[in-house]
């Protein structure tokens, strides 16, 4: 694919953006424009496909090929699109309701197949467009219009679903962390196969502050850790804390205390095939252990659409049929003469 220089404005459509003022989606949209410009795939070689929900409005704000489809089905539509037109760079935009409730089945199967699409999952733990019902990522006991006495069910943790579906790329960011979001989106775009990027996003109207425990400036350095491949897993205001092994589990320690040195702190390996440690890292939630942002897993594997294309070219070469008629006459038939 030709990669020339594009600016974020090249990816921006002329449509007025209609999300609520203060919605986390504004920041994510801007970062997506920037990430696309950084990767440099031309707008006309890019397709953005979404389902239904606030976040799914996003394709209208892109100057790319775009398709705002039906609730939950974007992953299936994106899969068909990519298989049919593999030259295109395909992005799927989903929310926690669209992607994990009504679209849960398509989500896990897209990840399992490892079709080369980038799934952007904007997680605000609420249904915004239908005005405030709990979602599959809402915490147990969450009070909403459809759970006035609190939910009686446990939430999905998106990363856990991705690993359960044997996903090969998982990254995470927070709507207010623009640089991290851009870094993760660029890595997702460059990853071969399905990449899932979860962005914790604030719904200013129906779930304001749901991620505050993690995102408040006061605690953010203590409650999040930015993982980078090949770097020590350090966090804290002065990077004074680190993650170390504790039996089968992880533990946060202070470097220089209790006998822990920098050498004890783990180095992040996003490319290792085993997802054992990736899963533990992705499950950290900011309480006992910091929430992980950045690229948590990025492993190359066989890509669904490429394997289809490969089969087609091999079998075509082997059989050498030039047309339907040629194929039929290569099989059982008889001739009726004049």
């Amino acid at each position, binding site marked *: 694919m030709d990669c020339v220089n594009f600016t974020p404005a090249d990816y921006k459509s002329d449509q007025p953006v209609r999300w609520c003022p203060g919605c986390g989606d504004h920041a994510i949209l801007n970062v997506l424009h920037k990430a696309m410009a950084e990767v440099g795939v031309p707008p006309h070689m890019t*397709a953005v496909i979404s389902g239904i929900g606030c976040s799914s409005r996003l394709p209208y704000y892109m100057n790319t090929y775009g*398709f*705002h*489809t039906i609730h939950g089905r974007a992953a299936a539509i994106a899969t068909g*699109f990519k298989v049919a037109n593999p030259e295109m760079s395909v992005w799927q935009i989903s929310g926690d309701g669209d992607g994990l409730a009504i679209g849960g089945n398509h989500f896990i*199967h897209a990840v399992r197949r490892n079709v080369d699409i980038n799934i952007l999952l904007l997680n605000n733990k609420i249904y915004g467009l239908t005005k405030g019902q709990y979602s599959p990522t809402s915490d147990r006991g969450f009070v909403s219009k459809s759970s006035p006495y609190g939910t009686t069910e446990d939430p999905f943790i998106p990363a856990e679903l991705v690993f359960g579906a044997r996903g090969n790329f998982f990254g995470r960011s927070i709507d207010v962390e623009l640089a991290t979001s851009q870094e993760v989106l660029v890595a997702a775009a460059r990853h071969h196969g399905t990449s899932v990027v979860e962005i914790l996003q604030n719904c200013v109207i129906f779930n304001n502050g749901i991620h505050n425990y993690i995102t408040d400036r006061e605690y953010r350095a203590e409650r999040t850790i930015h993982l980078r491949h090949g770097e020590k897993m350090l966090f804290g205001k002065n990077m004074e804390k680190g993650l170390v092994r504790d039996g089968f589990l992880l533990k946060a320690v202070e470097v220089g205390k209790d006998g822990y040195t920098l050498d004890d702190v783990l180095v992040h390996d996003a490319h290792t095939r085993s997802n054992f440690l990736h899963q533990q890292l992705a499950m950290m939630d900011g309480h006992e252990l910091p929430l992980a942002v950045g690229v948590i897993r990025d492993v190359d594997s066989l890509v669904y659409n490429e394997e289809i294309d490969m*089969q087609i070219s091999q079998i075509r070469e*082997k059989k050498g049929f030039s047309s339907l008629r040629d194929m*039929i006459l290569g099989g059982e038939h008889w001739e009726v003469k004049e």
Partner: protein
Amino acid sequence: MLEKADVKTIEKVVVRFSGDSGDGMQLAGTIFTNVSAGVGNQVSTFPDYPAEVRAPQGSLSGVSGFQVHIGVGVHTPGDKADVLIAMNPAALKQNVKHLKKGGTVIVDIDSFKESDLKKAQFVTDDPYKELDLNAQVLEVPITSMTKAALAESGLDNKSVLKCRNIFALGLVCWLFNRPIEAVIHHIKNKFARKPAVFEANSKVLQAGFDYGANTHASVSTYRIESEDVRPGYYTDINGNTAIAWGLILASEKSGRPLFLGSYPITPATDILHELAKRRDLGVKAIQMEDEIAGVCSAIGASFAGNLGVTSTSGPGLALKSEGIGLAVMAELPLVVIDVQRGGPSTGLPTKTEQTDLMQALYGRNGESPVVVVAPASPTDCFDMAFEASRLAIEHMTPVILLSDAFIGNGSSAWRVPDEGDYPQICPPYVPENLREAWKPYMRDESTMARYWAIPGTEGLAHRLGGLEKDYSTSALSIDPVNHEHMVMARREKVAKIADDIPELEVMCDADADTLLIGWGGTYGHLFTAAEELNKMGRKVAFAHFRYINPLPKNTFDVLSRYKKVICAELNTGMMADYLQSRFGGMQVLRINKIQGQPFLVQEIVDGVINIMDEK
């Protein structure tokens, strides 16, 4: 060649092979059909297989049948069989109702022991009497003869028993004077990779043929009439394969790659099977995680510039409704194939019905017109799959193709089309001179179809979606008047397709007072019934619908010419209701059957006479 005692010449004959679902009756029937087609007979087949994959051996629920009609003037698999092959008592019991009075039954007498009779729930030791059988019975020791023929083959007992169907085939080939070399050719293809099995089967085939010639020299054999057929290459094709191939030709003729997103469902799965094999022609057929993903992946592929297709049966069509609505709104080409089966719900999965007509026409939210077409026969499945694709692409609309289990599984001889037999399909690409001013919902005024901008094209990036758009700017719009304008535009687009399809043709006696009509897979039975009625002196005209929405332009003119219009269909009267709703005041009389089985010609003949004789 063997001597032939007495050869009768007949116009056509119906043969029914039946046995346990593991006995290979479908294979024996298929080979017999192909060999008959190869000698120039018209053929029409009807496989009748059980819903269970493997019911208990010898049980009534495990009986599998294959009926074939061969000869001249063959349009259906035949109402009843002249010759029935029954490999066990259960097969005889289940199929005796499909046998003509005075027909011939060939049974494997080795399989008629006391325990076999018990499994088939006979209460006496005389099954013929118990069934009140009115037929000439040939008791042939098929199992022991097969074993004897293969005594020195070195095959194990299980493999030997698997050849019994071919012994029976040999016997039938003797009875109908089929060239045994042609049968051997087919067996060789079938077992190309298993030479020992091929050897055994060809030996058994000869043994069956010789057995007939040697021991039943007094029984008449038949020479079946052949018809002059158009020169060319022929092959045997069933409706599902014909659909797959019609789609491939449409892809070749339109230049758009073919994509199928599907999910296994009886009786449509063979379309997925065939197109999955056709990676050798560049077809991308993928099995998705569910029916919804099937249609959605096809819509994604259409948006991406492919001919997007999904294949299913009634329950799957229900699941795809919302997706089809999206394709209506996004105005993308999409072909949805529904091989109808008995419903509602899981219903009769392996049996035929025409009960999805209303679902196809109306089963979506909002004003969402789609094109509905229905093939008339197994070979017409090829033409109508091509037509469905042509209309979808040239008019930028979803098209639902209503096939059914009967024609999907039934087969006929089909002439392989020559280059030039079918027209080019012209996708409505954005014209060069409009590129500057182009908007995604800009329409070609002559068809009302919007233009198709293929992703990857520079300068044509655009956004589509399920939300209503403005008629002129293509931006999102909730303007009330604009919505009505867009609803009417989508409706007009589909209505205008009437200009692009053939008119309704009247067959048989066009000057009669009574018009028999039907649609889709019942064509063969209806046409045969109409011909028989005219032969009996009952004047009947006949017209058959393959295009249902929009209807052919002359539909009202044709229907209003007749005093009585009788619609025969395999439901409670959906087409009749549809026509009455379209043409207020018109009365459409009805012949209906909802038994999971095709019509019998006789049923239609009787039904028409009853209605004609009513005051």
